[in-house]
């Protein structure tokens, strides 16, 4: 719970005594939140183009941004469908990518203490960016402002630019000639990079790449990604077998 979210903007404020959080001016929180919301929100254009290029209709593309609203899952679903994956494996891959949002929600619910009736609405905005901004704030008030402003900006812009991208895809003609097929993997790389902090994470990533590419020519579309997901439990298992206890000394003695 206490790991530092180094990448988040405005973190210098955390340099102060952590026991007595220094309040941060609301304006500064809003500025940080808008920065993230606008930058990421504009990349909905790349999603709109990619999705339309993959053969989805404008309506289907917009439905994804409105209802799914978690970029990695959307790109993954569209990519799997474009590659000819069946809808179940495509949706499974997208779903597994979305599972991380449950853990963001867990942290946010402690941090924001939202009233029960707000939670079903706030849930749609629980994503990487809103979590990063909220966690970087020193007080509950600024965390709430950061979450709300980032969520609202990002949701509105992401959906508007998705529509623009989906409509524009046709005008662009051959979207591959514009290099837009590189937007999807670049988005994934940008999301992945900050996660590669330890040797464990890099090993998982490496094994997953080998599995994902290795099984690609032999398994039906969409399935290799699910096989690659097994890299996570496999690496954890191998580490456990080598006697890595995590140094916490719990587990064995937990019974008593």
């Amino acid at each position: 719970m206490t790991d530092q979210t180094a990448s988040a903007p405005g973190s210098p404020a955390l340099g102060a005594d952590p026991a007595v959080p220094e309040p941060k001016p609301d304006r500064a929180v809003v500025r940080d939140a808008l920065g993230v919301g606008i930058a990421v929100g504009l990349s909905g254009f790349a999603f709109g183009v990619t999705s339309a290029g993959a053969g989805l209709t404008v309506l289907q593309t917009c439905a994804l941004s409105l209802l799914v609203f978690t970029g990695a899952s959307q790109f993954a679903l569209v990519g799997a469908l474009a590659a000819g994956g069946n809808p179940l494996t495509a949706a499974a891959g997208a779903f597994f990518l979305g599972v991380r949002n449950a853990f963001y929600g867990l942290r946010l619910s402690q941090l924001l203490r939202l009233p029960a009736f707000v939670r079903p609405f706030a849930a749609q905005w629980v994503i990487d960016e809103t979590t990063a901004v909220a966690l970087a704030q020193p007080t509950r008030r600024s965390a709430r402002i950061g979450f709300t402003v980032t969520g609202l900006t990002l949701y509105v812009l992401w959906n508007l630019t998705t529509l623009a991208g989906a409509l524009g895809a046709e005008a662009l003609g051959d979207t591959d000639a514009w290099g837009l097929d590189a937007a999807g993997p670049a988005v994934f790389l940008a999301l992945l990079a900050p996660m590669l902090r330890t040797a464990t994470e890099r090993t998982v990533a490496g094994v997953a790449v080998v599995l994902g590419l290795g099984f690609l020519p032999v398994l039906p579309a969409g399935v290799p990604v699910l096989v690659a997901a097994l890299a996570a439990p496999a690496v954890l298992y191998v580490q456990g077998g080598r006697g890595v206890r995590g140094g916490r000394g719990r587990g064995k003695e937990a019974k008593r």
Partner: protein
Amino acid sequence: MNIWIAIGLTAAGCYLVKLVGLLVPEGALERPLVQRLSALLPVALLAALTAQQTFSLNGALVVDARGAGVAAAALALILRAPFLVVVGAAVLVTAGVRALGG
């Protein structure tokens, strides 16, 4: 029709996991193994997806202009460029390499 099924399942699944995170009582997702797995699962998926979308075309492995574009994105990330610049670099370099006949 198949696409709508995929959209419906993805939308429902992704919304439910978001909601579960906000509603679940503290502790239920706090087991160390669950936390470790949840942190590593996206790493595995994103790494595999990045590689596939860079080096595959219709179920076959290929190396084309996208490789150069994604390499440019990696360089931008190392230089701590903002998100949009990272994606923009990938798109521009891929388009550039294609324009040059790569």
